[in-house]
C-alpha cells in the first residue's frame, strides 16, 4: 500500500467496479454527488439560482461538444493534434466561472473549458492545434493568457502578474492552471515559494487527472497534492473536480481571499482525463478499460443533468435545446476550421521582435525573393 493510499480514505464508489482509490468527504469538497444529490459543506456553501445552474450545464455540454468535434477534426486530418478535456469539463468550467472579468487566467494547453468561460472564440484555440498560429486570441483583452506548453512555466507568470496587481493596488487575482505532473517541476515549486513569500494574489488550480501522460501520481508525490501546500505555507484544498458546484465554490472563495490580500491558495481538483493525453496518445497501454468505466459513473455533466431533472429545474425541452445548440456550435467550428486560411509565410518574421532587427529584415527579404523566384 502506497503512502498516498494510506493518506486517503480508500473507498470503492461503485460496488463491483474496478475503480481507483477515491477520496471522500470531508477531505474532498463535494456539493453535488455523482448521483446528482446536493450536499452542504461547512466551509463552502453556494447559492446558485436555477438560471445559473442551467447556464453551468449549458457550458459543460457545449464545451464537451466542442471537444468531441475537435477530436473528430483531428482524426480527419484537419487539426494536427488535439488535447482533449473530456472528463475535466466541470473542473474547467467551474474554475473559469469563478473568475471575475478583471482576473487573469494562465492556462496550460488543455484549458478549453476555461477559454470558453472567458469568451475566447473556440476557433482561436483550434487554429493553434491546426498549426495556423500559436493561439489567435488577445490574451490581455480576454484575460486568458496564451496556452503555455512547457510544463508549469505559466505558474511563475501568474505569480509575477499577481505581484504586478499588488503594485497596482488592483483588487483582482491571477489563476494559474497546472496538472499533477507539473507539481514535480522546479518552476512550480518556485512559484509556490514566490507566491507565499510575497503574499501574491494568485490561486494555483491543479487538475489532478490521474495521469501525467502515462505516469500515475505515485511517481510524482508520496502525499496527496493538496497536502503539499502546507509545507509552502498556503492553504491546500481538495475538491471533487467532477463537481462543477464544488469547484465553483472553492475557486470563488480562494480568488476572493487573494483579492482581499489574504494570499495564495492551492486547489487540487480531483478528476479524471477520460480521453487520451492527446490524439497522439494510446491510453490502453497504461490503464484498464474498467477504470474508465468506473469514472464514467462520476461523469461531471451527467450529475448536473440528474440534479436539474430531478429537482424540476429543467425539462426535456431545455436539454434538447442545449443539444441542438451544441450541434450548431459543432457545425460552425467545423466550417470555421475547414475555411481557415494558411498563414502568410512572412508572418514567421514579423513578430519576433517589437523592433525588427536589420539582419532579420534581410532574411525576410531573402525569403520573399526566394519564393517570388518560383512565381516568374
Amino acid at each position, binding site marked *: 500500500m502506497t503512502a498516498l493510499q494510506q493518506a486517503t480514505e480508500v473507498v470503492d464508489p461503485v460496488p463491483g467496479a474496478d475503480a481507483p482509490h477515491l477520496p471522500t468527504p470531508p477531505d474532498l469538497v463535494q456539493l453535488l454527488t455523482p448521483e446528482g444529490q446536493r450536499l452542504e459543506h461547512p466551509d463552502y456553501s453556494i447559492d446558485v439560482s436555477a438560471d445559473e445552474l442551467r447556464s453551468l450545464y449549458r457550458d459543460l455540454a457545449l464545451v464537451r461538444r466542442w471537444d468531441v468535434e475537435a477530436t473528430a477534426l483531428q482524426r480527419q486530418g484537419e487539426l494536427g493534434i488535439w488535447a482533449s478535456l473530456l472528463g475535466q469539463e466541470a473542473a474547467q468550467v467551474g474554475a473559469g466561472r469563478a473568475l471575475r472579468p478583471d482576473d487573469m487566467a494562465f492556462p496550460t494547453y488543455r484549458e478549453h473549458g476555461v477559454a470558453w468561460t472567458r469568451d475566447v472564440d473556440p476557433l482561436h484555440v483550434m487554429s493553434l492545434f491546426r498549426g495556423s498560429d500559436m493561439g489567435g486570441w488577445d490574451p490581455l483583452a480576454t484575460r486568458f493568457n496564451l496556452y503555455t506548453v*512547457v510544463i508549469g512555466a505559466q505558474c*511563475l507568470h501568474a505569480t*509575477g502578474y499577481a505581484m504586478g496587481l499588488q503594485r497596482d493596488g488592483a483588487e483582482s487575482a491571477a489563476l494559474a492552471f497546472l496538472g499533477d505532473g507539473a507539481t514535480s517541476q522546479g518552476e512550480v515549486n*518556485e512559484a509556490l515559494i514566490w507566491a507565499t513569500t510575497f503574499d501574491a494574489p494568485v490561486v494555483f488550480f491543479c487538475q489532478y487527472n490521474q495521469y501525467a501522460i502515462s505516469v500515475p501520481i505515485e511517481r510524482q508525490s508520496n502525499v496527496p497534492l493538496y497536502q503539499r501546500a502546507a509545507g509552502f505555507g498556503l492553504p491546500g484544498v481538495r475538491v471533487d473536480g467532477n463537481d462543477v458546484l464544488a469547484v465553483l465554490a472553492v475557486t470563488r472563495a480562494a480568488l476572493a481571499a487573494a483579492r482581499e490580500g489574504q494570499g495564495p491558495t492551492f486547489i487540487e481538483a480531483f478528476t479524471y482525463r477520460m480521453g487520451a493525453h492527446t490524439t497522439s496518445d494510446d491510453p490502453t497501454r497504461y490503464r484498464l478499460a474498467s477504470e474508465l468505466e468506473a469514472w464514467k459513473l462520476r461523469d461531471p455533466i451527467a450529475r448536473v443533468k440528474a440534479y436539474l431533472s430531478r429537482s424540476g429545474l429543467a425539462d426535456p425541452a431545455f436539454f434538447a435545446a442545449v443539444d441542438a445548440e451544441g450541434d450548431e456550435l459543432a457545425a460552425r467550428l467545423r466550417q470555421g476550421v475547414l475555411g481557415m486560411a494558411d498563414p502568410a509565410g512572412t508572418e514567421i518574421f*514579423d*513578430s519576433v521582435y517589437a523592433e525588427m*532587427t536589420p539582419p532579420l529584415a534581410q532574411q525576410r527579404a531573402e525569403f520573399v525573393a526566394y519564393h517570388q523566384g518560383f512565381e516568374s
Partner: protein
Amino acid sequence: MSTETLSLGKALNLGLRRAMEDDPKVVLMGEDIGRLGGVFRITDGLQKDFGEDRVVDTPLAEAGILGTAVGLAMRGYRPVCEIQFDGFVFPAYNQLVTQVAKIHARSRGKLPMPIVVRIPFGGGIGAVEHHSESPEAYFAHTAGLKVVAVSNPVDAYWGIQQAIAAPDPVVFLEPKRRYWEKASVDRDATPGPLFASRVVRGGDDVTVLAYGPMVKTVLQAAEAAAEEGRSLEVVDLRTLSPLDLEPVYDSVRRTGRCVVVHEAPLTLGLGAEIAARVTETCFHSLEAPVLRVGGYDTPYPPSKLEEEYLPDLDRVLDAVDRSLAF
C-alpha cells in the same frame, strides 16, 4: 549633471537610478540586490531610495526571477533582472529561452516583453567554478532575445538605460573584471544607438573585433602592435544580437584581414558566426581567412589556469601575425 570620472560599476548604478527616475514602471529584481546592493554593489543604495517594491530582494531562484518578470511585464512593468553570476543563469535558461524570448512572437506582438537581464560575465577575477563564464552564444542563438555587451563606463551608463527603454528583451552583459575601470562620462551627452558596433581605434593592416572585457585587451594589443609598426583597426561590437557588421565589412574591405576575439569557447561561438558572415560578404577583399582567438573548448578552468585560458595581448598579437603572414 556634468562630466565626471566614473567606474563602469558606478556608471551602471547611476544609469539604473536614472532609468528608475524616468519610468516608475522599472522594477529591479535579483538576489541580494536590496540591502546589500548586489554582490558587485551595482544596485547600491537603490532600494533605500526607491523602496522594496521597486528593488526586490528575491528568493534564491533564478527561474523564479525570470518567470515572475514575465508576469510583471504583462502588467506593464519593465523588470530589470540581475543574475548574480554568469553560470547562475542556467536555472533561468528555460524561462529565458522558451518564454521571455518567444512570448512576443507567440502573441503576435500583443504581449511585449521589455525585460532586461543583467549578467556579470567573463573571467579574470580568480573566482571559483561558474563565476567566470561567457554564455553569450546561447542567447545570441535564440530568436527573440537581443544581446549586448558593454566594454566601458560611457556605454554602461547609457546602454543600461537604452536596454531598459527597449521594447524587446535584452540580455545585458557586464564585463565583471572591468567593473572598476574608470572613464570620463558626460551625463548630458546624447548617446549613440545601443544596437550598433563602433570603430574604437582606426588602423590599416588588420581589423580586430572584440566586445565586453576583451575590448581593453585588444586595444592594448593594438598599442603594442603600433610600436612594431603594425596598424590595427579595433571594432567594439557592442551588440551581439543583432550583430551590426556593416562597420566591420567596411573595415575588412580596407584591411583585407580580420581577427575576432572573445573569452567564450571557440566552437560555435560568436566568432564562428562573424567569420562566416565576413567571409560571405567580403570574400573578394580577404587576404587571409578570418581568424578567431577565444577560450578553449573546455569548461572554464580553475583560476590558477585562467591566464592560460583567457585570450591576452600575446595571443591577440599571435593571431595578428598569423593573419599578416598568410
